[in-house]
């Protein structure tokens, strides 16, 4: 367990609390609470920064200037204004809607999005829950993000939401498999499912993006499909089915969906960084977690870049592409990795 800046800080803090109270349980508890607070802070910051980032990137790519009036010259307070406005909107529950499912679905969607952050290694030792079946648990949790969309779609008693709900189920399930299979190659090379081992395996500049380029492409496409962003944003296909499952949601409920979507976006970026871009590894003139941050933001920019360039694919094209192209390719990748490892005698 190497000592990095963040984990050193955590150990020092634990020592201090233990010195104060003398009870080991209390210091662990305090540390966990601080960790959780930090993670929730990162998620809400992600929503705030990325709404602003998305509008600025979209504006710059469309040859115009993004928000630059609200709060100073760069419009930095724009997302704050949006959030405050969404908070103070009237909350309309459509008549004939299934009240329980209606209220539950935004909350339920936010739970997996936040829970996943516990397993990410932000720095050498700095991970909230150091689980040695990290990858497996990670995808088990993010697998149930499908249900809240369907609940929202069914509960809001609106044909467009129903169609949106159907689309979500088909799309997210069909891209769950390629997402997992593309990571099998990496697990075979590192031999362990612990995220930190995967990052350590990439030390010395040998990032998996160079070892497994095909897996990176498949992973990126499946991650974009998993977070329902263009070119696969059928769920919220504005021009076809208005806002998919969120058509009937307004005000803070819709903001929760919005928040969860950006949390998922950051999750996809962080996964890509941890698995393929060597997590917190980097020349040491910068501390580990700063490298981690730079790579994650870079990946978010690439995903946003997709959104403002590509049109939307159709439902059946997504499914055929998922089952007929992505899955076989990822299995082929696993086979190739196996062959190469045998050839090099690593196995």
């Amino acid at each position, binding site marked *: 367990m190497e000592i990095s800046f963040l984990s050193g800080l955590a150990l020092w803090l634990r020592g201090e609390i233990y010195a104060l109270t003398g009870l080991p349980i209390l210091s662990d508890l305090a540390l966990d609470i601080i960790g959780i607070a930090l993670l929730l802070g990162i998620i809400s910051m992600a929503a705030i920064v990325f709404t602003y980032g998305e509008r600025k*990137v979209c504006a*710059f*790519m*469309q*040859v*115009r*200037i993004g928000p630059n009036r609200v709060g100073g010259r760069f419009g930095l307070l724009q997302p704050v204004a949006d959030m405050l406005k969404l908070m103070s909107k009237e909350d309309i529950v459509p008549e004939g809607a299934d009240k329980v499912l209606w209220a539950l679905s935004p909350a339920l969607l936010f739970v997996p999005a936040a829970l996943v952050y516990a397993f990410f290694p932000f720095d050498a030792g700095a991970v909230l829950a150091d689980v040695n079946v990290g990858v497996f648990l990670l995808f088990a949790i993010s697998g149930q993000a499908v249900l809240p969309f369907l609940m929202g779609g069914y509960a809001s008693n609106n044909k467009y939401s129903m169609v949106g709900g159907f689309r979500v189920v088909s799309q997210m399930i069909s891209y769950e498999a390629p997402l997992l299979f593309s990571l099998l190659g990496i697990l075979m090379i590192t031999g362990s499912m612990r995220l930190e081992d995967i990052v350590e395996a990439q030390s010395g500049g040998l990032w998996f993006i160079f070892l497994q380029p095909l897996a990176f492409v498949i992973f990126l496409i499946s991650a974009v499909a998993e977070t329902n962003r263009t070119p696969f944003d059928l769920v919220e296909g504005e021009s076809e089915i208005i806002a998919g499952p969120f058509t009937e949601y307004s005000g803070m409920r819709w903001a929760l969906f919005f928040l969860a979507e950006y949390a998922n976006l950051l999750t996809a970026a962080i996964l890509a960084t941890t698995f393929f871009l060597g997590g917190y590894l980097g020349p040491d003139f910068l501390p580990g977690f700063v490298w981690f941050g730079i790579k994650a933001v870079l990946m978010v920019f690439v995903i946003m*870049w*997709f959104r*403002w*360039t*590509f049109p939307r694919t159709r439902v059946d094209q997504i499914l055929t592409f998922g089952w007929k192209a992505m899955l076989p390719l990822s299995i082929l990748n696993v086979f190739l990795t196996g062959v190469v490892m045998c050839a090099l005698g690593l196995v």
Partner: protein
Amino acid sequence: MFGKGLLTGMGVTIKHFFGKKETFCYPEEKLPMAEGFRGGDLTMDWRVCIGCQMCAMACPNKALDLTVVTDAKKKRHMKYYIHKTGRCLFCNLCVEVCPVHTLQWDKNYANSTWNKEDMVHDAMTDKDRADLDIFLSDVEKKAKAEAEAKAKAEAEAKAKAEAEAAEGKPETPKAETKAAPPKPEAKAEAAKKPAAQNAAPDAEKKAAAAEKKKGGEA
């Protein structure tokens, strides 16, 4: 390769991401308006306007309702020039048909308001109407003065005529007639001189009036 078209597309967007932006920051920099721009409210100068109401007739949607007032010399002036922006097409027919070219757009397109009353815009402000009243009153005075002068002149002419008739009936009547005609001509010139200011439109007005009759009955 499958992704080639996608990558060229991404190349275009990233080129624009770093390229020059096209935006005009509206409230600070304003786009230069072409001189023929049709927007804002109508403005006119009541001194030049001859009250022919050609603009109101030319408007496709009757967006102009005008009240005209005639002064002592039976010449028309504009009192209220109501331009209903809510009905206006901004098609420029009124500006082009005005014989004296006094109707202009004030090119102030940014005149949105909170209440609907400002949409019915009066091209003549209250100050204009005050100047109009002053102008009408002094035209009144001049007309009254002329009327007295004419009345006095006639009285003298009648008195002189009786005096000559009484003095020497045998005198030749030619002298009288010679004396009478020059006086009315002088009076006519005198009348014409104050109206010299808009003498040209008089002819025009007669043509417009004739036309209005023809248009009316068509």
